[in-house]
């Protein structure tokens, strides 16, 4: 069975929020929309976002790491939000593993958001229905789009290509290879939710310069006379 998912490369994410607003603009006018904003021009503005970037610091100065961490529905293989739904609004698609909400059935009871250990469900406070990342279901299943565009809006937007997208059940897919070869990990595996989305860790490149590398026969300094004799007295003139 296909399981579509995102693999997010923390090694290159710079926290620019392109994924946040490209998601919003696609989905607010799409199948999963609208994505309402509350107090859009007033105090305490807030609104529905299927994808948010959290930035936090790790360690103490000067050994500080600043981490940008995009978060959205992880499309769990065993999603705890589905069985708790009293109306069957919350469901996992069989053809591609995407977890969705049918707004027509949703009664806004929030059981699913309590069940979700990742806090990625967003209650539309105006319509009183639960909304969430759909992996842009109306893009990825739209056969009228060219194949190169049949991807979530966030994936297409991301300037650092930090969001890989594909079938994590296909061992030869880009995402499976990335998870396998670059230390991809799932969030909070102890919950047994088996998130489909994965994260790739930071990697560091170091350089070592050995002392020998500073001593070269072709050192350009050897081309310049380092001293000039201008007639001043030396030990060679006065000792015997």
């Amino acid at each position, binding site marked *: 069975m296909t399981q579509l998912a995102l693999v997010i490369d923390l090694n*290159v994410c*710079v*926290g*620019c*929020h*392109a994924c*946040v*607003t*490209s998601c*919003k*603009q*696609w989905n*607010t*006018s*799409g*199948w999963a*929309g609208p*994505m309402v*904003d*509350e*107090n859009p*021009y*007033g*105090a305490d*503005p807030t609104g529905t*976002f299927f994808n948010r970037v959290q930035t936090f*610091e790790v*360690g103490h*100065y*000067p050994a*500080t790491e600043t981490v940008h961490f995009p978060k959205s529905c992880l499309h769990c293989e065993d999603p705890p939000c589905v069985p708790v739904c009293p109306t069957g609004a919350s469901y996992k698609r069989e053809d591609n593993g995407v977890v969705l909400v*049918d707004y027509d059935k949703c009664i806004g009871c929030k059981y699913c958001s309590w069940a979700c250990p990742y806090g990625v469900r967003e209650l539309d406070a*105006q319509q009183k229905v639960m909304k969430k990342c759909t992996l842009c*279901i*109306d*893009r990825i299943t*739209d*056969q*009228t789009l060219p194949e190169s565009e049949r991807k979530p*809006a966030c994936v*297409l*937007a*991301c*300037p*650092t*290509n930090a969001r890989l997208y594909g079938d994590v059940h296909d061992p030869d897919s880009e995402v499976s290879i990335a998870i396998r070869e670059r230390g991809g990990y799932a969030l909070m595996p102890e919950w047994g939710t088996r998130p489909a989305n994965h994260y790739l860790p930071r*990697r*560091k*490149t*170091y350089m070592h*310069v050995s002392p020998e*590398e*500073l001593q*070269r026969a072709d*050192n*350009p*300094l050897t081309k*310049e*006379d380092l001293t*000039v004799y201008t007639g001043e007295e030396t030990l060679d003139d006065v000792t015997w």
Partner: protein
Amino acid sequence: MKDPAAHPDRDIGHTEVKETTCYMCACRCGIRVHLRDGQVRYIEGNPNHPLNHGVICAKGSSGIMKQISPARLTKPLRRKANARRGESQFEEISWDEAMDLLTERLGRLRAEDPRQFALFTGRDQMQALTGMFAKQFGTPNYAAHGGFCSVNMAAGMIYSIGGSFWEFGGPDLERAKLFVMIGTAEDHHSNPLKVQISKFKRRGGRFVSINPVRTGYSAIADEWVPIRPGTDGALFLALIHELLKVGLFDRDFLIQYTNAAELVIDDPDRDDHGMFYRDPETPITEGCTDPQNKLWWDRERGAVLTHTKGADPRLMGSFTLADGTPVKPSFQLLKDRVERYTPEWAEGITGIPAATIRRLAYEMGVTARDQKIELPITWTDCWDNEHDSVTGNPVAFHAMRGLAAHSNGFHTIRALSILMTVLGTIDRPGGFRHRAPFPRPIPPCPKPPNSPEAVQPNTPLDGLPLGWPATPEDLFVDADGEPVRIDKAFSWEYPLSVHGMMHNVITNAWRGDPYPIDTLFLFMANMAWNSSMNTTEARRMLADLDEHGNYRIPFLVVCDTFASETVAFADLVLPDTTYLERHDVLSMLDRPISEFDGPVDAVRLPVLPPKGECRPFQDVLIELGGRLGLPAFTTADGRPKYRNYPDFVVNYETSPGSGIGFLAGWRGEFGDKVLKGEPNPRQWEQYAANGCVFHHELPRSYQYMRNWNKGYLHWARAHALTRWAEPITLHLYSEVLNRFRAAALGKRPGRRPPERLRERIATYFDPLPFYYEPLETQLIDKIRYPLNALTQRPMAMYHSWDSQNAWLRQIHSHNYLFVNPQTALAQDIADGDWIWVESHLGQVRCMCRYSEAVEPGTVWTWNAIGKAAGAWALSADADEAKKGFLLNHLIGEELPTNGTHSGVPPFSNSDPITGQAAWYDVRVRISRAEVQEPRISEPQFPPMRPVPGQASRPRTRWQAYVAGLFDRH
């Protein structure tokens, strides 16, 4: 719900897709705008665009919210007769009335004294037109925002290597192995840089970030090297010291392509001390900026002309020419200069351990030397040497405002340019690479006017409004050596202020120094808020009356798209369009979007009709030019020459028959010429058919070593990019600077600075870089103000534009002062506390946020988030006004006088060479606000009222945007 798979999105409503160019920031990515029933449904990156290759950022993805913003201005407005400036009380007027009013007033000023009209513009990317309008009008008082942005970066590098970062050049990360980024915020060249950094990291490149703050790009650096603000120059000089000491410099590159081996006269008693020795017998290209009549000291033959075949010149030593002139290669002078700049010395200034500085120098030097790139590309240099490959040293740098916005920034950036040069990385693979029209001569040819006679009634300005002084004779001063421009640019106070000094216009005009003006016309510049230093005072000056009860700045015109803070102060408001509603050009005459491989320019095409009565500012200027009878905008019989901007762009030539126009692509009668060619009436259609972008890829042999690449330079001359095909020798040693110093020391015939400025010029016009403490820091009590305060823009916002954007403001609705916990704890300040931040000018109240990602001597905040209450159509209690704050209130536009009054107005708080605003020099102290104090930011201003024509729809709690349905009932 319906099955999403069964209902393609494009079947909902009437769908159209139009291509244009983004302007949510200054990157200028190609975009495809999807419309549904005439409303924007989706904006995506254009995958075929050479700049962004399909990606788009948070701002670009939020263009929809710009379009529907309630802050949109939609009608021309006039201040009500009985209202005061700043009260935001306006009445609607028609465009005819507005244009009549402007024509009458400006026509009178032009006939009497064109200086009385000052035109200053923000980050507009249409300087080709605005500058031309000012020149045609005849006023010297024109500039864009470069003086308070990053002119040090442009000038420091262009006066050294003939090119600069961002539009004009950048790091070749495709081939670099080591990338060092210094003082870079996250808003410049943002998408291309993000794309390149991520690819670079994935290829295993090593990325070092040197910055007081670790955010954004720095977050993914392999190593973060925190540095104290304003000390980068000390770091670069120490790195150069170490590279020279150990022998990690590219000797061949320095000899062939820089003035390192060229002989400088070394006799302090002679008038020509510090100038290159020039052989009078050698024929030179007349008028060329840097003629090739200089000498090397060949180890066998002694003095020889530079580039004598077979010569092997000395880089070091001290020699005497046959006529008895003592000389040294300029490299020896550099070595002498950096002798004292040891890593241990720099450690005390920068806060970076000496061992780290040494290690960084070795990493750079060894990578440059041992990982040399060789590309199988043949090319010919200017001296007719054939090369069968292009080689490069893969160490790349990028730097921006963190270096520039200090009063020592010019020399800091000269030092960086020299560091890059010593490593042999200029226009070579893996290093720094130019973007057309750069490289240009050092300095480029255009000059500002050089005397008050250049300004005459009813006559265009004699010279370009901005230019590149090469000698004191190029300064725009009067017979006493005093400024002609209102901002004092190109005067002896700030001789190389090549982008003007917009940050001093309001203060100078208010003070009447050097003279009062009548009309200040601001286009897209928020000078009553985040684009002014000392903002509280700037607002007071804009509304200040003289002893007769008249405004000290009599008439203020503001053209903008949004109800900014500045609009409240206008006498006349002109509503501009958004980027989706107009034609634009991103012109080779201004700041194009060229790639390393060749020139690129682009256009915007209107995707939507203008809102309300909005008119593109370009159309307004062209109509105004016609009405005022400015020669370039009128026919011989005095009628307007152009219908509108698109008509102008196609038909205008810089001079009759020059073949140079605003757009470089598809020129000539048949659209088959590039860069130069007759006007092509179908040019807009050609751009439309090609994704709104023109990209001319150069042959590979012209893509590198362009300063000295004979084929490229002749191609550039043939296509009117440059005047000379002479090699552009890199200026390790700046003879240009020495000319100004010689004038100050009385060692040069011609112009001399006024007495009071001689020491200043002699000090700062040093032909070699040196480190000095920022000017304001030298003048204030460092014990009282122990902290440096910085601002930077977040990636999701650009300038002050985006607080009116309902989506982007949810990412940053207010700003904190970020403080290292050890610094905060010393003042008993807890995370989240309200605090006072005080500078020598005053204080602001804001909230403190702990951050371990900031050097403890630095505090910083996001710029341009805090807003004046009611501005930008936000409610008076919006977070931006009550929790957000503006640091600018603490930053002086002039240097502190410490109570002394010499009768002479204070110097601008700027770099003494370029006039770059020294935003980042400000020093502060912080203290906890008392618990009983109100928990809102200070200062506060009376809320700005909405202006007529602002969004009519009711302010509701909810806003749900769905394309095709929004606001349609």
